[in-house]
């Protein structure tokens, strides 16, 4: 309850400062070209392929008045017979990208991914405070409203402040697709399957025969690293499996134009 009040107060403060900013700058100079999906598609790792995920980005952008741009999901697919791999970094234009408040997420692809040692050590500007949904919401992250039930989809879907910081990416830290041998993309975003429940859970990585997706964190907290795009894998690809590691199947959207 106390936390809820604090959050409410913070939201008010945030709205207040936003209003103050808006007053100072009536014409917002940097229109939104990046957001985290405020809601998942809802069928686990089955996004209807890249086309389905892009359509989800486009629909959410349209609902918030940014539908005049071309939106792509930040997702890779792995090479399959007759189909070459697709790298997430090759799908999102060249930047710069701004969130719904006009704050820069990254100047360009090299800044976003840390293409040089110095860029990678410094990092981009995707943080818990800037990694906002298209509605301007902060994505609940590590240690937010902890509850023993926050690994259970039935709880998570009705508790909007519980941790849900895992973004589907299917991508390596440099923004490229994984090699084809194992599943890092829920079968190129068409699978809602889980591993055989009789098998031991094992580590949060891809493994032979395991439906799995690589994820990253907008709050940069968790998984033994702070990677925004490639921290670890999932327990499976069903909607019920994703919350077991604090995800719900949300992902990043970027405007390519």
């Amino acid at each position, binding site marked *: 309850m106390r936390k809820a009040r*604090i959050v409410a107060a*913070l939201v008010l403060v945030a709205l207040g400062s936003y209003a103050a900013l808006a007053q100072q700058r009536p014409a917002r100079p940097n229109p939104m070209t990046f957001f985290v999906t405020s809601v998942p598609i809802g069928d686990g790792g089955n996004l209807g392929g890249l086309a389905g995920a892009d359509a989800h980005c486009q629909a959410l952008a349209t609902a918030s008045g940014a539908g005049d741009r071309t939106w792509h999901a930040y997702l890779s697919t792995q090479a399959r017979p007759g189909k070459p791999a697709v790298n997430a970094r090759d799908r999102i234009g060249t930047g710069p990208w701004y969130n719904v408040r006009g704050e*820069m997420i990254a100047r360009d692809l090299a800044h976003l*991914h*840390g293409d*040089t*040692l*110095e860029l*990678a*050590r*410094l*990092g*981009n*500007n*995707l*943080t*818990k*405070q*800037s990694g906002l949904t298209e509605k301007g919401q*902060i994505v609940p992250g*590590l*240690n937010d409203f902890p509850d023993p039930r926050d690994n259970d989809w039935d709880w998570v879907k009705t508790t909007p402040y519980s941790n849900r910081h895992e973004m589907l990416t299917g991508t390596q*830290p*440099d923004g490229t697709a994984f090699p084809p041998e194992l599943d890092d993309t829920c079968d190129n975003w068409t699978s809602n399957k889980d591993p055989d429940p009789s098998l031991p859970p094992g580590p949060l990585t891809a493994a032979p025969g395991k439906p799995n997706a690589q994820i990253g964190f907008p709050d*940069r*907290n*968790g998984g*033994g*690293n*702070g*990677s925004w795009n*490639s*921290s670890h894998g999932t327990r499976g690809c069903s909607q019920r499996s994703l919350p077991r590691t604090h995800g719900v199947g949300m992902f990043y959207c970027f405007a390519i134009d």
Partner: protein
Amino acid sequence: MTLPRLLMMAAFLLVLSGSYLAQGRGQAPPRPMGFFVTSVGIGRGGDLGGLAGADAHCAALAATAGAGSRTWRAYLSTQARPGQPVVHARDRIGQGPWYNSRGGLISQHQSQLHGDTLIEAQRGSNLFKQFALTEKGEVVHGVGDPMPNLHDMLTGSQTDGRAFPDSADRTCGNWTSSGAGAAQVGHSDRIGNGNTSWNSSHATTGCSQADLASWGGAGMFYCFAAD
């Protein structure tokens, strides 16, 4: 079943249980605190009494948390000045692994902490807001938290953990100035100045306690156990 066979089975079971016990012990290695954020600054801005004063601050806070037996070093560089050698922060803190006050792993080794390879640098270490705890186990207030924002950590270091080579001051006069000068800082919450650097995000203007506060800090810093 013959007696020898029974004995053999008993011996086999003993060996099994023995290795199980050994494994049980091996599964919970000690994770003593080897990293913390100072819960308070020294209070004189960038004047820490040099590296020796900063190390003593680390040791004193560690002692209050029951970790006084380790060798504590402040994560600070000093710059080469007449009569003063350059000191790189990364060379002062041992080799790791370092755990926080709740046993959470901060980094396995130097290479992970500083991102010595491209893939390590892209992934980042475990030094993020929810793990970068004080010696009391508290999360340090950062961007988006109730004010004041305390996330600026004095380091005087470049992103690779080494001192700045130039003549410009990045260390408040090698941690002796509470007036003129500048200090390079990192962010314990990994938020601010357009990057997520824990050890080298930006420089302050001025070294007084008020100067540091105006940038979002209180003259706090990282402490690591070197042993």
